[in-house]
């Protein structure tokens, strides 16, 4: 039974094959950034798309991942891979804590969204002030490419690493979607009371989801810092990462396994294309980007994958008739 795995494998293989087709580091760098965003966004998608708990503050997990990894490496000299595991655990734990606080309090919808935003902002202010996080000057990882340091002098290698992470996140998500836990998660999204009546332990389901979500997004934070070797509070906990993590699945197809990846590629691809409109006046490219974004939403309200499904359904209906 393939149930969804087919396209995951195809797309992963396609991306993995790009080093055979091009040697453009611009492309690899672009793809690395997209994959990092896709991974962060997959975390969002699990909680927000499939589980319906919209977060505006996924930067919180991204930042916790990035900071945990870099603090362990710079302050304690911990091996990068161990730091990675610790960072993922930290993201997951942060998810549990935030989830416990807010889900116990019964927060949903916009209220949950805002509380996550507040947590991210709180962490941003704290990271900006604390000694451990390097305060406002941020943390710099020492540039020492080696497997042990999870730094690679070749862009394609790092791209493949990021791809591996994304692949794992896709497989995990697909597995969840096919499972009982996935059904419960969707049920919670659609109607909590009904889910409860059917024996779904709503709090536990949500907690599982947010802790997995935090772990995935934290992993993205680790990749970010391993790639750019620098992190500060504004990058790690700033609103922009939260928005990226939410925008990608929304555009690609909320709650769909491949939505975040497709969305991230589309958005960033669009960003690169619109840069060519930049000309002399700053901001024009982003205006074009925004207009295209609005048009995409207007005509593909269920995201790109939603649109594709609708088209294929219509095609099938016509073909069948």
């Amino acid at each position, binding site marked *: 039974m393939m149930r969804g795995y087919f396209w995951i494998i195809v797309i992963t293989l396609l991306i993995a094959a790009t080093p055979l087709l091009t040697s453009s*580091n611009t492309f690899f760098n672009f793809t690395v950034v997209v994959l990092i965003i896709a991974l962060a966004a997959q975390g969002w998608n699990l909680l927000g798309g499939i589980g319906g708990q919209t977060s505006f503050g996924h930067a919180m997990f991204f930042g916790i991942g990035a900071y945990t990894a870099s603090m362990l490496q710079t302050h304690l000299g911990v091996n990068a891979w161990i730091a990675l595991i610790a960072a993922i655990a930290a993201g997951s734990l942060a998810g549990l804590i935030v989830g416990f606080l807010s889900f116990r309090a019964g927060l949903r919808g916009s209220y949950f969204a805002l509380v996550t935003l507040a947590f991210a902002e709180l962490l941003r202010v704290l990271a900006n002030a604390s000694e451990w996080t390097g305060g406002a000057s941020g943390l710099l990882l*020492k540039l020492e490419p080696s497997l042990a340091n999870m730094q690679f*002098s070749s862009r394609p290698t790092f791209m493949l690493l990021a791809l591996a992470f994304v692949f794992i996140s896709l497989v995990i998500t697909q597995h969840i979607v096919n499972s009982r836990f996935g059904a419960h998660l969707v049920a919670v999204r659609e109607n909590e009371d009904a889910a409860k009546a059917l024996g779904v332990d709503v709090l536990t389901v949500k907690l599982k989801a947010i802790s997995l979500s935090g772990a995935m997004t934290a992993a993205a934070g680790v990749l970010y810092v391993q790639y750019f070797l620098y992190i500060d509070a504004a990058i790690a906990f700033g609103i922009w990462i939260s928005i990226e993590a939410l925008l990608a699945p929304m555009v690609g197809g909320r709650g769909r396994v491949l939505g975040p990846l497709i969305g991230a590629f589309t958005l960033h691809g669009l960003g690169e294309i619109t840069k060519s409109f930049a000309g002399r006046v700053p901001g024009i490219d982003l205006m074009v980007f925004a207009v295209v974004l609005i048009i995409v939403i207007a005509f593909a309200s269920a995201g790109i994958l939603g649109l594709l499904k609708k088209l294929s359904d219509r095609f099938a209906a016509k073909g069948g008739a």
Partner: protein
Amino acid sequence: RGAEPAPIKVGILQPVTGALAQDGEYGRLGAEMAIADINAAGGIKSLGGAKLEMVFGDARSTPEAGTQEVERMQEEGVVAIVGGFASPICLAGSQAAARYDLPYIVDVGVTDQIITRGLKNTFRFAPGFSLCTGAAIQNLVKINESAGKAAKTVALVHEDGLFGSGLAKLMATELPKHGFEILELIAVPTPSRDLSNVVLKLRSLRPDLIIPSTYYGETVLLARTMQQQRVRPKGVYSVLNGAASNHRFVKEFPEAAGNIMDCNHWFDPRNEKALAVQKRVEATGKPFNYNTPLNYSCIGLLADAIERAGAADRVKIIEALGTSTFSDHLMPYGPTKFENGQNMGAAPVSTQVQDGAIKVVFPEDFANAKPKFPANG
């Protein structure tokens, strides 16, 4: 006619969208003017008059976007990259460039981490954090001494980002060594909506000297609120401040800005060439802020290195930069001399707003006015 020599592509990286767009614009303007001037003067002579060609990249105020632009510029075949403005962008951009031995000239980015990573390709023309603070303190001590040690107590107001906090911390440890008493360190967020409380605090602390290191908007708010609340210290001495050396501020609020001193990047007001460039910029209605002459000079530095390298070859350019003694710049610096990538000839100057204009008041070698200190005496 013989074939024109192939143009030499130079990457200009500036944030012209996002939070830092304002500074990025000024920087881009300087680089553009320099390229135009060099080309008008016959291009790179050692390469048969090859023209410089600008490849511009918008860093969009984030390190990711900066890196992506570096990669693109690299693929377009630039021989060097100039700019970055903000430290995070410079850190990420120079590192990306380092993979290709692509020379990277940092314009502003003050964090010392930029030059302590041992990247061979990275050069910073302007003074970094430690040079700036060192000079700021030195200048302040001298100015204060020549005023008969008028100021004893100090309050520091700083933005809570990368440079403000570090700066304040350093000042707080250094100034007491010179007999100043630090009353308080006040961190303010960017952007701030209201600084009434900071001013209230200042009013109750009554410091002789206020040292603000904040971005433009906050400094405007601070100065205006101080004037409103009638807080008149003996001096306002800012370090790397976003407004006290910004012409717009001086023009819009001559009273609030009056007598504010700043230790910052600035051009050399005694340099004829700098004054000429200033005239040209101001003729277009734009203010002449330090990013412009600084980037103008960085391009000059690069062109000089290419000239001496005699080839559009990265390794040779890096070598030439490393041994540069470039002095035909617009800045109040001595001849260029790189140590581990930092131009040790660079130094900030102290400026003061006097009679609605920004004057250099220290060091005397570059000064076009005398410091007015204490200001409200």
